[in-house]
């Protein structure tokens, strides 16, 4: 378990930035409210066995959840474990209609017809967090179209490419 080095840190931050944007600062500097000690340590990123963990500083050497995976080739994938964290800080959100919730959970991409709401100013290739109408985070994906284009799409057009959802745990 070691802290990330330069390259890894950039890769990780970039990826997270796609989803979270400027809220990245929040993530990095979030005061830790866990741990038995009363004074909070900060969260930090740690690397273990090709996986990056986001853990509280106050508990050294103890792995925590919310991890993401680093592939040996150096590309970085976010796993579903990080959903809670992303959802809290996400910049781009998409809300699904109740009817298409299950479809997304089975691994399908989000179609225009299933779209309930969508935040503005989404650029294609942005990370998007998918919610249900009751604000329950369901997963995340990559935006296929910008918000403007979505409006022009036919109902079967893909809006969000499915990357991970909560059923895959």
């Amino acid at each position, binding site marked *: 378990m070691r802290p990330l080095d330069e390259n890894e840190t950039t890769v990780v931050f970039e990826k997270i930035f796609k989803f979270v944007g400027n809220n990245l600062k929040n993530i990095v500097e979030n005061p830790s409210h*866990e741990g*038995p000690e009363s004074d909070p340590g900060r969260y930090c990123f740690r690397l273990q066995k090709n996986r990056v963990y986001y853990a509280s500083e106050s508990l050294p050497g103890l*792995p925590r959840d919310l991890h993401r995976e680093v592939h040996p080739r150096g590309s970085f994938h976010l796993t*579903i474990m990080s959903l809670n964290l992303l959802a809290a800080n996400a910049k781009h959100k998409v809300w699904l209609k109740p009817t298409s*919730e*299950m479809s997304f*959970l089975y691994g399908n991409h989000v179609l225009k017809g299933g779209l309930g709401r969508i935040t503005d100013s989404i650029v294609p290739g942005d990370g998007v967090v998918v919610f*249900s109408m009751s604000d329950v985070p369901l997963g995340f994906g990559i935006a296929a179209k910008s918000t403007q284009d979505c409006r022009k799409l036919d109902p079967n057009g893909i809006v969000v490419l499915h990357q991970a959802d909560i059923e895959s745990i």
Partner: protein
Amino acid sequence: MVLTRSNKKAPKSQTPPPFKKLSKAQTPPVKKAEKPQTLTLKKGAKSQKKPPLKKQKKEDVVEEEDPLEEVSDVESEDVDESDDGEKGSNGFFSDDDDGEEELLGDDFLDGSGDDEEEERSDSDAALSSDSDSDEEDILKESEALDRAKAKEEEDADAELLDFNKEVGPDGESEHDAFRMPTEEELEEESRGPPDLPLLQTRIKEIVRALSNFNVLRPKGASRKECSEQLKADLASYYGYNTFLIGALFELFPPVELMEIIEAFEKQRPTSIRTNTLKTRRRDLADVLLNRGVNLDPLSKWSKVGLVVYDSQVPIGATPEYLAGFYMLQGASSFLPVMALAPKENERIVDVAAAPGGKTTYVAALMKNTGLIFANEMKVPRLKSLTANLHRMGVTNTIVCNYDGRELPKVLGEKSVDRVLLDAPCSGTGVISKDESVKTSKSLEDIKRFAHLQKQLLLAAIDMVDATSKTGGYIVYSTCSLMVAENEAVIDYALKKRNVQLVKTGLDFGQDGYKRFREHRFHPSLKQTKRFYPHVHNMDGFFVAKLKKMSNMKQSLEDGETVEQADVSSDDDEAEEMEKHAVPNKQQPKETKENKIERLAKSKEKKKGKKDGKSKSKNVEKKPKKKRSEWKKEIAQAREEKRRAMREKPKEKQ
């Protein structure tokens, strides 16, 4: 007119008590425990609809009711029907009471009690010649009725005997009383596939006989024979192995045994637990109701439990489940966590955590503060544990993969506030979930589990810091009914460590056994709790809550020895403090051991003990020492303590 009225009333006045009894019994809810009464109440309504058919019978039957009341085991349909009749007739009588006067005033052929009155008058006419001589008629009637009553009583007795014989199912003749099958019959049975209806009736018969053996014993059969036969029949009918049936037989009387075995055949209701980290029970219930799930709050002792009756969608696949709003969890699994009552910002260890239902509950109660060590020995189960933790949004938990007995070494002794040990067990309480337990468990298995559980419990106790401000508790639970895995393990821990049983905090459930067959346990064991499927409608479970009194590893049997230990171990106490500070290492232990021995020798000289071996009273358990040596030491320590106990009162005197 007057005559008819009096005639009609005569029978009633002659035998008012039974009728009045009946009328009273009919209207308010029946509080008698006797089955015939309750059954007849239900059927009374029916019989009232068929008055014409049952007229003749009713009169006879009315008198029969008294002797029948005394027999509580009578269950035959004959009796029920007759009771029906009398209930119905009584209804008519009570109706007649009200309506008769008016009706008779005009014309006794009219009115609701019409037919009956006619019949009455007919029968009366048969008895009495004319309507002129009232009193004579009444006398004659009463005599006739008395005779009839006596006759009915005789018949009833005879019928009872017959009934007994008739129901006896054993093989050939129906008119014999129930008797045990002979060897030839048993051989015949074992040759072919088991005859299930025969087994069932025989089981019922033997259970009935055993419940009141003095009265109902089959001819020439001892209680033991009946028990053995019952066990064999239950084993083959329900599919148990002989060991398990024998074990259950020892735990429960025959009637309760039947109840629990029947309960094991059925599933317990599905229950879920709201994840308070993410939602509230009310909100969750609303959402699930919208999805078409039929649910209710679980019970009054749980604020987070919901019971699911049925559901249009699979309850384990809703988006709410996937988002971690609830956990599918048996009601009995709530109990050890409720007993544990973890507080925020504590350090907790869950020694056998997978699949994580209890661990996530603990985390929810702690509101994701503090620290939980979720340990699981089997690697394949780790995945489900981590998955559940992630799903439920638990962030204060560390998952580790150790053998529970090693945990004190890994985490350090006296390092945590509370420990939850839901020990691996034979699973005899959850037969409804897993039928293979019926056939796969043997005495050896139970012994092995018991041994493992004892070791785990000692390790768990060692991990707890007795001086913790908010904690110092260990909760031990199993899903087994066996005394060897439950009370015996706790009793062992009480002897081996300085712990005490405290109230579990669960105000329902049966108390644990203080003594069982030849075992005698510590009296505080009645603070443990047992739960049964046929009583509480949840899986069989056992929960015990221990408080660690001090970090000393010896056990102290009562107050006097505590004082003694304190008094005499001033030197040792300092040593022990040092020991606690230093982690277990080989060399320091040895030197300290020598120290102890020296001190012990000096102490012995002081107290003039005669013990030859110079082993210290306050020797600590050292895992590096040989087991036999250690055991000897403990035995020696105990003997010395006892002697000291004897000496102390003498000294005081």
